[in-house]
């Protein structure tokens, strides 16, 4: 009888320990101190971030309507998950084949427009399933008379 009691106690203790270990493994959580690490900071500096719970409304009704119209245009893609597990702080999409730009045919072009992106801001689409960014764009138009001399017009 005593042996059975010890066996049952051991079984209960073992089950509790195993359960605790499995739980710890299945829900890794990033602590605030980990999120203050340099790699997190660098990512946040380089990539604009949209807050999923932010209503993203602008105080100016006219500007707000324009923004909503833009957000509506991006409702056709589902990049943002509606639910993530606790502790998950990032998701990344990798496509096959890899997305690449073809080489620019500069030598064959009469005009080349070069855009420089300013400070970017991230926004969610109206249905919150896609993410987009908007930024001021500085445009420089280069007239290409040949390959030797370029003239520039800046807007």
């Amino acid at each position, binding site marked *: 009888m005593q042996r059975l009691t010890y066996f049952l106690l051991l079984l209960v203790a073992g089950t509790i320990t195993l359960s605790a270990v499995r739980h710890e493994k*299945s829900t*890794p959580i990033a602590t605030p101190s980990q999120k203050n690490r340099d790699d997190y900071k660098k990512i946040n500096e380089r990539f604009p971030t949209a807050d999923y719970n932010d209503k993203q409304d602008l105080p100016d009704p006219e500007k707000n309507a324009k923004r909503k119209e833009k957000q509506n245009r991006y409702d056709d893609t589902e990049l943002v*998950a509606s639910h993530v597990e606790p502790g*998950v*702080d990032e*998701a990344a999409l990798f496509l096959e*084949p890899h997305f690449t730009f073809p080489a620019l045919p500069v030598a064959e072009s009469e005009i080349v427009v070069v855009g420089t992106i300013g400070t970017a801001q991230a926004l969610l689409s109206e249905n919150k399933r896609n993410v987009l960014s908007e930024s001021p764009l500085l445009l420089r138009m280069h007239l290409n008379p040949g390959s030797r001399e370029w003239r520039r017009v800046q807007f």
Partner: protein
Amino acid sequence: MSNPLRNFWNATIGSVTVEIDQMIATQYLSVPDAAARIEAGQRGWNGQDLCATNVTFIGFGLRAFTETEKTSQPPNGKVYWVVKDPQNGSYAGIVSYFSNNRVVAARAMVHPGGTMDPTSDPLHLQSSRFTRNWTLI
């Protein structure tokens, strides 16, 4: 930003259960063994002396997925392979979910209208390549 450490699975996660959309078995007429090819592509990285040796891909069962599951994060420790347009003109895509710079779950999407050339074995290739991205730098 290139941060190769982010390609690793969380080493403490252990076995990762892979679940495959049952549509994959019949979606691509020219590749009736599509699910087996996906499985072979991922299993090929198990047990190798690589960076995440204790992360093992297991399961590979077929089942139906809801539309919500096809667009949400799988539970931590799981990989879903679903028939869904990854968009952006691609035939396949994978979303890796990170916690503290380590992968904890993933959802792979295969275009429903894709025509597969069985001789080039694209499903095996992409599942192998996705897995390599996780296990190697």
